[in-house]
Protein backbone atom coordinates (compact mmCIF):
# COMPACT_ATOMS: atom_id res chain seq x y z
CA UNK A 1 0.00 0.00 0.00
CA UNK A 2 1.47 3.29 -1.05
CA UNK A 3 0.85 5.95 1.54
CA UNK A 4 0.74 9.63 0.82
CA UNK A 5 2.03 11.76 3.70
CA UNK A 6 -0.57 14.18 5.06
CA UNK A 7 -3.44 12.11 3.64
CA UNK A 8 -3.26 8.95 5.71
CA UNK A 9 -6.69 9.14 7.42
CA UNK A 10 -8.39 7.57 4.43
CA UNK A 11 -6.28 4.41 4.73
CA UNK A 12 -7.42 3.84 8.29
CA UNK A 13 -11.01 4.69 7.38
CA UNK A 14 -11.08 1.71 5.04
CA UNK A 15 -9.92 -0.61 7.80
CA UNK A 16 -11.74 0.92 10.75
CA UNK A 17 -15.17 2.47 10.21
CA UNK A 18 -16.01 5.39 12.52
CA UNK A 19 -18.57 4.26 15.15
CA UNK A 20 -21.99 5.92 14.91
CA UNK A 21 -21.87 7.26 18.47
CA UNK A 22 -18.66 9.14 17.68
CA UNK A 23 -20.28 11.01 14.78
CA UNK A 24 -23.44 11.58 16.85
CA UNK A 25 -21.31 13.03 19.64
CA UNK A 26 -19.63 15.39 17.19
CA UNK A 27 -23.00 16.53 15.84
CA UNK A 28 -24.22 17.25 19.35
CA UNK A 29 -21.08 19.22 20.24
CA UNK A 30 -21.23 21.27 17.04
CA UNK A 31 -24.90 22.07 17.65
CA UNK A 32 -24.34 23.05 21.29
CA UNK A 33 -21.34 25.15 20.34
CA UNK A 34 -23.44 27.07 17.81
CA UNK A 35 -26.25 27.57 20.33
CA UNK A 36 -23.85 28.89 22.96
CA UNK A 37 -22.03 31.21 20.58
CA UNK A 38 -25.33 32.52 19.12
CA UNK A 39 -26.59 33.23 22.63
CA UNK A 40 -23.39 35.08 23.52
CA UNK A 41 -23.57 37.17 20.34
CA UNK A 42 -26.61 38.86 21.86
CA UNK A 43 -24.56 39.90 24.89
CA UNK A 44 -22.38 38.70 27.76
CA UNK A 45 -24.04 35.99 29.84
CA UNK A 46 -23.44 33.85 32.93
CA UNK A 47 -23.70 30.04 33.04
CA UNK A 48 -27.16 30.05 34.70
CA UNK A 49 -28.43 32.59 32.13
CA UNK A 50 -27.15 30.48 29.25
CA UNK A 51 -28.63 27.33 30.80
CA UNK A 52 -32.03 28.95 31.06
CA UNK A 53 -31.90 30.23 27.52
CA UNK A 54 -30.72 26.94 26.01
CA UNK A 55 -32.94 24.86 28.33
CA UNK A 56 -29.96 22.69 29.22
CA UNK A 57 -28.63 21.59 32.62
CA UNK A 58 -26.25 24.16 34.14
CA UNK A 59 -23.46 21.61 34.54
CA UNK A 60 -23.59 20.78 30.84
CA UNK A 61 -23.46 24.45 29.85
CA UNK A 62 -20.53 24.91 32.24
CA UNK A 63 -18.63 21.99 30.67
CA UNK A 64 -19.24 23.08 27.08
CA UNK A 65 -18.65 26.77 27.75
CA UNK A 66 -15.35 26.11 29.57
CA UNK A 67 -14.31 23.89 26.64
CA UNK A 68 -15.06 26.78 24.26
CA UNK A 69 -13.00 29.04 26.53
CA UNK A 70 -10.09 26.61 26.20
CA UNK A 71 -10.52 26.30 22.44
CA UNK A 72 -10.36 30.10 22.08
CA UNK A 73 -13.95 30.95 21.11
CA UNK A 74 -14.99 32.59 24.35
CA UNK A 75 -13.37 34.77 27.00
CA UNK A 76 -14.13 35.71 30.59
CA UNK A 77 -15.84 39.01 31.28
CA UNK A 78 -16.79 40.78 34.51
CA UNK A 79 -18.17 39.08 37.61
CA UNK A 80 -21.76 39.86 38.62
CA UNK A 81 -22.72 42.30 41.41
CA UNK A 82 -22.92 39.54 44.02
CA UNK A 83 -19.39 38.30 43.18
CA UNK A 84 -20.85 34.93 42.30
CA UNK A 85 -21.07 34.34 38.55
CA UNK A 86 -18.75 35.50 35.79
CA UNK A 87 -20.08 36.80 32.50
CA UNK A 88 -18.64 35.18 29.40
CA UNK A 89 -18.34 36.76 25.97
CA UNK A 90 -17.31 36.00 22.43
CA UNK A 91 -13.55 36.37 22.15
CA UNK A 92 -12.85 39.69 20.51
CA UNK A 93 -10.09 38.38 18.23
CA UNK A 94 -11.71 34.97 18.36
CA UNK A 95 -12.06 32.11 16.01
CA UNK A 96 -15.82 32.26 15.91
CA UNK A 97 -16.49 31.06 12.42
CA UNK A 98 -20.04 29.89 13.02
Amino acid at each position, binding site marked *: *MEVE*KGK*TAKYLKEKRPVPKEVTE*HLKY*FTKTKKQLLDALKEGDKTVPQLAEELKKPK*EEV*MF*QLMSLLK*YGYVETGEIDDNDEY*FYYKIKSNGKNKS
Partner: protein
Amino acid sequence: MKTLEYDVLVVGGGIAGGEAALNLANIGYKVLIVEKELSIGGKMILLSKVFPTLDCAACITTPKVSEIQRHPNITVFTGAEPRKITKKGEHDFEAVVFQKPRYVDVAACTGCQLCEEACPVSVTDEYQFGLIGRKAAFIPFSIASPRAAAIDIDNCILCGACERACPPDCIDFTQTEEEFLVKIKSVVVATGFQLFDPLKIPRYGYGQYKNVITSMQMERELAPTRPFNTILRPGDGKMPDNIAYVLCTGSRDKSVGNPICSQVCCMYSIKQAQLLMGALPMADITIYYLHIRAFGKGFNEFYAQAQEMGVEFIKGKVGKISEKENGNLILRYEDIEAGVVKEAEHDMVVLSVGILPNRGIDEVFDNEKLKLDPFHFVDQSDILASPAKTSIDGVFVAGTATGPMDIPDSILSGGSASAETTSYLRRRN
Protein backbone atom coordinates in the same frame (compact mmCIF):
# COMPACT_ATOMS: atom_id res chain seq x y z
CA MET B 1 9.54 -8.81 16.58
CA LYS B 2 12.25 -6.19 17.00
CA THR B 3 14.85 -7.04 19.66
CA LEU B 4 16.32 -4.36 21.93
CA GLU B 5 18.95 -4.54 24.66
CA TYR B 6 19.26 -2.49 27.83
CA ASP B 7 20.68 -2.95 31.30
CA VAL B 8 17.51 -2.05 33.20
CA LEU B 9 13.81 -1.94 32.39
CA VAL B 10 11.92 0.61 34.50
CA VAL B 11 8.17 0.00 34.44
CA GLY B 12 6.49 3.36 35.04
CA GLY B 13 7.77 6.85 34.34
CA GLY B 14 6.43 8.74 37.35
CA ILE B 15 8.70 10.48 39.82
CA ALA B 16 9.88 7.25 41.50
CA GLY B 17 10.63 5.42 38.23
CA GLY B 18 12.13 8.58 36.78
CA GLU B 19 14.42 9.07 39.78
CA ALA B 20 15.58 5.43 39.64
CA ALA B 21 16.18 5.68 35.88
CA LEU B 22 18.18 8.92 36.17
CA ASN B 23 20.43 7.56 38.91
CA LEU B 24 21.09 4.37 36.95
CA ALA B 25 21.69 6.27 33.71
CA ASN B 26 24.07 8.69 35.42
CA ILE B 27 26.38 5.86 36.43
CA GLY B 28 26.39 4.48 32.92
CA TYR B 29 23.60 1.90 32.71
CA LYS B 30 21.35 1.87 29.68
CA VAL B 31 17.76 2.21 30.82
CA LEU B 32 14.41 1.72 29.09
CA ILE B 33 11.42 3.42 30.71
CA VAL B 34 8.06 1.95 29.70
CA GLU B 35 5.20 4.33 30.53
CA LYS B 36 1.54 3.49 29.89
CA GLU B 37 0.38 7.13 29.63
CA LEU B 38 1.19 9.53 26.79
CA SER B 39 3.56 11.52 29.02
CA ILE B 40 6.06 10.70 31.73
CA GLY B 41 5.88 12.56 35.05
CA GLY B 42 3.18 10.43 36.66
CA LYS B 43 0.65 12.02 38.98
CA MET B 44 3.05 14.68 40.26
CA ILE B 45 3.26 16.52 36.95
CA LEU B 46 -0.49 17.20 37.22
CA LEU B 47 -0.36 18.74 40.70
CA SER B 48 -0.54 22.44 41.54
CA LYS B 49 1.85 22.84 44.45
CA VAL B 50 3.42 20.43 46.90
CA PHE B 51 3.32 20.29 50.70
CA PRO B 52 4.76 21.44 53.04
CA THR B 53 6.90 23.93 51.11
CA LEU B 54 4.21 25.08 48.64
CA ASP B 55 6.74 24.72 45.83
CA CYS B 56 5.23 24.61 42.37
CA ALA B 57 4.96 20.93 41.35
CA ALA B 58 5.58 21.66 37.67
CA CYS B 59 8.75 23.62 38.51
CA ILE B 60 10.20 20.50 40.13
CA THR B 61 8.84 17.96 37.66
CA THR B 62 9.49 19.64 34.31
CA PRO B 63 13.30 19.90 34.62
CA LYS B 64 13.34 16.27 35.82
CA VAL B 65 11.27 14.91 32.95
CA SER B 66 13.23 16.90 30.42
CA GLU B 67 16.52 15.54 31.87
CA ILE B 68 15.08 12.03 31.52
CA GLN B 69 14.04 12.64 27.91
CA ARG B 70 17.41 14.10 26.94
CA HIS B 71 19.62 11.61 28.79
CA PRO B 72 21.78 9.66 26.33
CA ASN B 73 21.43 6.50 28.45
CA ILE B 74 17.63 6.60 28.75
CA THR B 75 15.06 5.54 26.18
CA VAL B 76 11.41 6.32 26.90
CA PHE B 77 8.44 4.46 25.44
CA THR B 78 5.12 6.19 26.16
CA GLY B 79 1.75 4.57 25.52
CA ALA B 80 3.52 1.28 26.19
CA GLU B 81 3.28 -1.64 28.60
CA PRO B 82 5.24 -4.79 29.29
CA ARG B 83 2.98 -7.77 28.69
CA LYS B 84 5.39 -10.50 29.74
CA ILE B 85 8.62 -10.49 31.75
CA THR B 86 10.59 -13.74 31.99
CA LYS B 87 13.56 -14.35 34.22
CA LYS B 88 15.92 -16.61 32.32
CA GLY B 89 18.70 -16.49 34.89
CA GLU B 90 20.57 -14.05 37.11
CA HIS B 91 21.17 -10.78 35.21
CA ASP B 92 19.14 -12.22 32.36
CA PHE B 93 15.54 -11.11 31.81
CA GLU B 94 13.40 -10.88 28.71
CA ALA B 95 10.40 -8.59 28.38
CA VAL B 96 7.77 -8.37 25.67
CA VAL B 97 6.75 -4.71 25.39
CA PHE B 98 3.76 -3.46 23.42
CA GLN B 99 3.49 0.11 22.24
CA LYS B 100 0.13 1.52 21.17
CA PRO B 101 0.11 3.65 18.04
CA ARG B 102 0.07 7.39 18.81
CA TYR B 103 -0.63 8.18 15.12
CA VAL B 104 1.95 10.96 15.42
CA ASP B 105 5.67 10.88 14.65
CA VAL B 106 6.85 12.19 18.03
CA ALA B 107 10.31 13.13 16.75
CA ALA B 108 8.84 15.31 14.00
CA CYS B 109 6.02 16.92 16.03
CA THR B 110 6.83 20.47 17.11
CA GLY B 111 3.91 20.75 19.54
CA CYS B 112 2.44 23.66 17.55
CA GLN B 113 -1.15 22.60 18.38
CA LEU B 114 -2.48 23.42 14.89
CA CYS B 115 -3.92 19.89 14.75
CA GLU B 116 -5.78 20.60 17.99
CA GLU B 117 -7.24 23.74 16.54
CA ALA B 118 -8.28 21.96 13.34
CA CYS B 119 -9.89 18.94 15.07
CA PRO B 120 -13.69 19.36 15.20
CA VAL B 121 -14.23 16.76 17.93
CA SER B 122 -14.58 17.61 21.62
CA VAL B 123 -14.53 14.87 24.26
CA THR B 124 -13.91 14.75 28.00
CA ASP B 125 -10.34 15.64 28.99
CA GLU B 126 -9.01 12.91 31.26
CA TYR B 127 -5.96 15.01 32.16
CA GLN B 128 -8.32 17.67 33.62
CA PHE B 129 -10.22 14.85 35.37
CA GLY B 130 -13.42 15.37 33.43
CA LEU B 131 -13.93 19.07 34.21
CA ILE B 132 -13.57 20.23 30.62
CA GLY B 133 -13.27 18.97 27.04
CA ARG B 134 -10.31 18.28 24.80
CA LYS B 135 -9.90 17.55 21.10
CA ALA B 136 -9.39 14.09 19.58
CA ALA B 137 -6.09 15.39 18.17
CA PHE B 138 -4.45 16.75 21.29
CA ILE B 139 -1.36 17.44 23.33
CA PRO B 140 -2.15 15.65 26.61
CA PHE B 141 -1.35 18.76 28.71
CA SER B 142 0.86 21.78 28.23
CA ILE B 143 3.90 20.46 30.14
CA ALA B 144 3.56 16.89 28.84
CA SER B 145 6.80 15.13 28.05
CA PRO B 146 7.20 14.41 25.20
CA ARG B 147 5.28 17.57 24.27
CA ALA B 148 3.85 15.96 21.18
CA ALA B 149 0.35 15.49 19.85
CA ALA B 150 -1.54 12.21 19.96
CA ILE B 151 -4.69 11.02 18.24
CA ASP B 152 -7.47 9.60 20.41
CA ILE B 153 -8.45 7.06 17.81
CA ASP B 154 -11.56 5.87 19.66
CA ASN B 155 -13.09 9.35 19.33
CA CYS B 156 -11.57 10.34 15.99
CA ILE B 157 -13.87 10.74 13.00
CA LEU B 158 -10.92 10.30 10.61
CA CYS B 159 -11.77 13.53 8.80
CA GLY B 160 -8.10 14.25 8.15
CA ALA B 161 -8.35 17.92 9.25
CA CYS B 162 -5.42 17.47 11.64
CA GLU B 163 -3.24 16.06 8.87
CA ARG B 164 -4.03 18.93 6.54
CA ALA B 165 -3.19 21.45 9.29
CA CYS B 166 0.08 19.79 10.36
CA PRO B 167 3.08 21.73 8.97
CA PRO B 168 5.70 18.91 9.29
CA ASP B 169 3.25 16.19 8.13
CA CYS B 170 3.88 14.22 11.30
CA ILE B 171 0.41 12.70 11.69
CA ASP B 172 0.36 9.15 10.43
CA PHE B 173 -2.82 7.05 10.58
CA THR B 174 -0.99 4.03 9.18
CA GLN B 175 0.84 3.45 12.48
CA THR B 176 0.02 0.14 14.15
CA GLU B 177 0.76 -1.48 17.50
CA GLU B 178 4.41 -2.43 17.85
CA GLU B 179 5.85 -5.32 19.80
CA PHE B 180 9.44 -5.45 21.09
CA LEU B 181 11.50 -8.18 22.70
CA VAL B 182 13.63 -6.40 25.29
CA LYS B 183 16.65 -8.13 26.83
CA ILE B 184 17.60 -6.67 30.21
CA LYS B 185 19.64 -7.56 33.27
CA SER B 186 17.31 -6.15 35.89
CA VAL B 187 13.82 -4.66 36.35
CA VAL B 188 12.52 -1.77 38.48
CA VAL B 189 8.77 -1.82 39.12
CA ALA B 190 7.50 1.75 39.62
CA THR B 191 3.88 1.32 38.64
CA GLY B 192 2.54 3.96 41.03
CA PHE B 193 -1.00 4.21 42.27
CA GLN B 194 -4.55 5.00 41.27
CA LEU B 195 -7.00 7.22 43.07
CA PHE B 196 -10.05 5.86 44.85
CA ASP B 197 -13.20 6.21 42.76
CA PRO B 198 -15.79 7.95 44.98
CA LEU B 199 -18.66 6.54 42.90
CA LYS B 200 -18.17 3.54 45.19
CA ILE B 201 -19.61 5.62 48.07
CA PRO B 202 -23.01 6.64 46.64
CA ARG B 203 -24.07 8.41 49.86
CA TYR B 204 -21.52 11.16 49.12
CA GLY B 205 -23.31 11.92 45.87
CA TYR B 206 -20.24 12.17 43.66
CA GLY B 207 -21.27 12.05 40.01
CA GLN B 208 -24.85 12.92 40.94
CA TYR B 209 -24.21 16.27 42.66
CA LYS B 210 -21.93 18.24 40.37
CA ASN B 211 -20.52 20.45 43.12
CA VAL B 212 -19.05 17.43 44.88
CA ILE B 213 -15.62 16.98 43.33
CA THR B 214 -12.50 14.96 44.06
CA SER B 215 -9.31 16.38 45.50
CA MET B 216 -7.58 15.72 42.16
CA GLN B 217 -10.21 17.83 40.40
CA MET B 218 -9.59 20.61 42.93
CA GLU B 219 -5.85 20.16 42.35
CA ARG B 220 -6.48 20.90 38.65
CA GLU B 221 -8.64 23.91 39.51
CA LEU B 222 -5.72 25.27 41.55
CA ALA B 223 -3.01 24.56 38.97
CA PRO B 224 -1.76 27.32 36.62
CA THR B 225 -2.99 25.20 33.69
CA ARG B 226 -6.45 25.07 35.26
CA PRO B 227 -9.61 24.08 33.39
CA PHE B 228 -11.66 27.15 34.37
CA ASN B 229 -10.79 30.84 34.51
CA THR B 230 -10.63 30.58 38.32
CA ILE B 231 -11.93 28.32 41.10
CA LEU B 232 -15.54 27.63 40.11
CA ARG B 233 -18.26 25.13 40.86
CA PRO B 234 -18.55 22.65 37.97
CA GLY B 235 -22.30 22.52 38.59
CA ASP B 236 -23.06 26.10 37.57
CA GLY B 237 -19.90 28.21 37.38
CA LYS B 238 -20.45 29.96 40.72
CA MET B 239 -17.37 31.11 42.60
CA PRO B 240 -17.57 29.10 45.85
CA ASP B 241 -17.20 30.77 49.24
CA ASN B 242 -17.78 27.93 51.67
CA ILE B 243 -15.86 24.77 50.79
CA ALA B 244 -15.78 21.52 52.77
CA TYR B 245 -13.19 18.73 52.63
CA VAL B 246 -14.17 15.18 53.50
CA LEU B 247 -11.02 13.33 54.58
CA CYS B 248 -10.56 9.55 54.43
CA THR B 249 -12.81 9.15 51.36
CA GLY B 250 -11.95 5.58 50.42
CA SER B 251 -9.19 5.21 53.00
CA ARG B 252 -9.34 3.63 56.48
CA ASP B 253 -12.71 2.29 55.40
CA LYS B 254 -13.28 -1.45 55.48
CA SER B 255 -16.68 -1.02 53.84
CA VAL B 256 -14.98 -0.07 50.56
CA GLY B 257 -12.24 -2.67 50.89
CA ASN B 258 -9.42 -0.26 51.79
CA PRO B 259 -8.72 -0.32 55.52
CA ILE B 260 -5.33 1.45 55.32
CA CYS B 261 -4.37 5.11 55.59
CA SER B 262 -3.39 6.78 52.32
CA GLN B 263 -0.80 8.93 54.12
CA VAL B 264 -1.07 12.00 51.88
CA CYS B 265 -4.73 13.11 52.05
CA CYS B 266 -4.49 15.07 55.33
CA MET B 267 -1.54 17.05 54.06
CA TYR B 268 -2.73 17.64 50.49
CA SER B 269 -6.11 18.80 51.84
CA ILE B 270 -4.39 21.21 54.22
CA LYS B 271 -2.27 22.40 51.30
CA GLN B 272 -5.32 22.94 49.09
CA ALA B 273 -7.08 24.75 51.95
CA GLN B 274 -4.15 27.18 52.19
CA LEU B 275 -4.07 27.67 48.43
CA LEU B 276 -7.83 28.25 48.35
CA MET B 277 -7.55 30.91 51.04
CA GLY B 278 -5.07 32.66 48.78
CA ALA B 279 -7.22 32.28 45.66
CA LEU B 280 -10.56 33.05 47.36
CA PRO B 281 -9.75 35.37 50.29
CA MET B 282 -13.38 35.59 51.40
CA ALA B 283 -13.99 31.84 51.41
CA ASP B 284 -14.52 29.65 54.47
CA ILE B 285 -12.76 26.31 54.35
CA THR B 286 -13.78 23.45 56.65
CA ILE B 287 -11.94 20.14 56.89
CA TYR B 288 -13.87 17.18 58.32
CA TYR B 289 -11.31 14.70 59.65
CA LEU B 290 -10.98 11.57 61.73
CA HIS B 291 -7.37 12.13 62.81
CA ILE B 292 -4.89 14.57 61.28
CA ARG B 293 -1.75 12.67 60.39
CA ALA B 294 0.97 15.30 60.05
CA PHE B 295 3.97 13.07 60.64
CA GLY B 296 6.65 14.24 58.19
CA LYS B 297 9.27 16.94 58.33
CA GLY B 298 7.58 20.33 58.56
CA PHE B 299 4.08 18.78 58.36
CA ASN B 300 2.82 19.68 61.83
CA GLU B 301 3.98 23.27 61.39
CA PHE B 302 2.13 23.32 58.06
CA TYR B 303 -1.02 22.09 59.82
CA ALA B 304 -0.64 24.78 62.50
CA GLN B 305 -0.17 27.39 59.79
CA ALA B 306 -3.49 26.38 58.20
CA GLN B 307 -5.22 26.70 61.59
CA GLU B 308 -3.70 30.16 62.06
CA MET B 309 -4.91 31.15 58.60
CA GLY B 310 -8.45 30.34 59.69
CA VAL B 311 -9.11 26.90 58.18
CA GLU B 312 -11.71 25.23 60.36
CA PHE B 313 -10.99 21.66 61.44
CA ILE B 314 -13.93 19.56 62.62
CA LYS B 315 -13.33 16.09 64.01
CA GLY B 316 -16.27 14.48 62.35
CA LYS B 317 -17.30 11.55 60.21
CA VAL B 318 -19.48 12.56 57.28
CA GLY B 319 -22.31 10.10 56.81
CA LYS B 320 -24.29 11.55 53.96
CA ILE B 321 -24.29 14.45 51.55
CA SER B 322 -27.47 15.80 49.99
CA GLU B 323 -28.07 18.60 47.53
CA LYS B 324 -30.26 21.69 47.78
CA GLU B 325 -32.00 23.21 44.80
CA ASN B 326 -29.39 25.98 44.52
CA GLY B 327 -26.60 23.40 44.21
CA ASN B 328 -25.42 23.84 47.80
CA LEU B 329 -24.72 20.70 49.78
CA ILE B 330 -25.86 19.56 53.20
CA LEU B 331 -23.32 17.46 55.07
CA ARG B 332 -24.74 15.22 57.77
CA TYR B 333 -21.92 14.27 60.10
CA GLU B 334 -21.10 12.90 63.49
CA ASP B 335 -19.32 15.54 65.55
CA ILE B 336 -16.97 13.10 67.28
CA GLU B 337 -15.88 15.43 70.09
CA ALA B 338 -19.43 16.49 70.99
CA GLY B 339 -20.85 13.03 70.31
CA VAL B 340 -23.81 14.34 68.34
CA VAL B 341 -25.02 14.22 64.75
CA LYS B 342 -25.04 17.62 63.06
CA GLU B 343 -25.73 19.15 59.68
CA ALA B 344 -23.84 21.89 57.86
CA GLU B 345 -24.31 23.64 54.54
CA HIS B 346 -21.45 24.23 52.09
CA ASP B 347 -21.49 25.41 48.50
CA MET B 348 -18.81 22.98 47.31
CA VAL B 349 -17.48 19.70 48.68
CA VAL B 350 -14.09 18.17 47.97
CA LEU B 351 -13.69 14.45 48.62
CA SER B 352 -10.10 13.76 49.70
CA VAL B 353 -9.76 10.49 47.85
CA GLY B 354 -7.29 7.84 48.88
CA ILE B 355 -4.57 5.88 47.14
CA LEU B 356 -5.08 2.39 45.72
CA PRO B 357 -2.60 0.07 44.01
CA ASN B 358 -2.32 -0.10 40.24
CA ARG B 359 -3.21 -3.71 39.60
CA GLY B 360 -1.84 -6.24 37.18
CA ILE B 361 1.96 -5.96 37.31
CA ASP B 362 2.27 -9.32 39.13
CA GLU B 363 0.52 -11.04 36.21
CA VAL B 364 3.18 -9.75 33.81
CA PHE B 365 5.89 -11.87 35.44
CA ASP B 366 5.92 -15.14 33.63
CA ASN B 367 7.90 -17.81 35.41
CA GLU B 368 8.49 -16.29 38.84
CA LYS B 369 5.97 -14.89 41.28
CA LEU B 370 6.04 -11.19 42.11
CA LYS B 371 4.53 -11.33 45.57
CA LEU B 372 1.94 -8.72 46.55
CA ASP B 373 1.01 -7.62 50.07
CA PRO B 374 -2.53 -8.13 51.46
CA PHE B 375 -3.59 -4.78 49.94
CA HIS B 376 -2.25 -5.68 46.46
CA PHE B 377 0.76 -3.38 46.59
CA VAL B 378 4.12 -4.96 45.66
CA ASP B 379 5.46 -6.85 48.68
CA GLN B 380 8.80 -5.70 50.03
CA SER B 381 10.51 -8.97 50.95
CA ASP B 382 13.00 -7.31 53.31
CA ILE B 383 11.27 -4.07 54.22
CA LEU B 384 13.63 -2.90 56.96
CA ALA B 385 17.05 -3.88 55.63
CA SER B 386 16.47 -3.72 51.89
CA PRO B 387 13.20 -1.91 51.10
CA ALA B 388 13.49 -2.07 47.30
CA LYS B 389 13.78 -5.88 47.21
CA THR B 390 10.87 -7.93 45.90
CA SER B 391 10.22 -11.66 45.90
CA ILE B 392 12.20 -11.97 42.64
CA ASP B 393 15.97 -11.47 42.80
CA GLY B 394 16.87 -8.79 40.26
CA VAL B 395 13.43 -7.16 40.33
CA PHE B 396 13.23 -4.05 42.53
CA VAL B 397 10.36 -1.78 43.48
CA ALA B 398 10.14 2.00 43.80
CA GLY B 399 7.61 4.56 44.99
CA THR B 400 3.90 4.07 45.57
CA ALA B 401 3.94 0.65 43.91
CA THR B 402 4.88 -0.49 47.46
CA GLY B 403 2.11 1.43 49.22
CA PRO B 404 0.88 4.99 49.79
CA MET B 405 3.65 7.54 50.29
CA ASP B 406 4.31 11.21 49.67
CA ILE B 407 6.58 12.82 47.08
CA PRO B 408 9.83 13.08 49.12
CA ASP B 409 9.45 9.43 50.17
CA SER B 410 8.75 8.36 46.57
CA ILE B 411 11.94 10.04 45.42
CA LEU B 412 13.89 8.44 48.27
CA SER B 413 12.38 5.09 47.33
CA GLY B 414 13.40 5.61 43.69
CA GLY B 415 16.93 6.33 44.93
CA SER B 416 16.92 3.22 47.05
CA ALA B 417 15.73 1.07 44.12
CA SER B 418 18.50 2.44 41.89
CA ALA B 419 21.15 1.73 44.55
CA GLU B 420 19.94 -1.83 45.05
CA THR B 421 19.70 -2.39 41.29
CA THR B 422 23.29 -1.18 40.92
CA SER B 423 24.41 -3.50 43.67
CA TYR B 424 22.64 -6.42 41.94
CA LEU B 425 24.12 -5.57 38.53
CA ARG B 426 27.64 -5.38 39.95
CA ARG B 427 27.31 -8.61 41.88
CA ARG B 428 29.19 -11.35 40.11
CA ASN B 429 27.74 -14.83 40.16
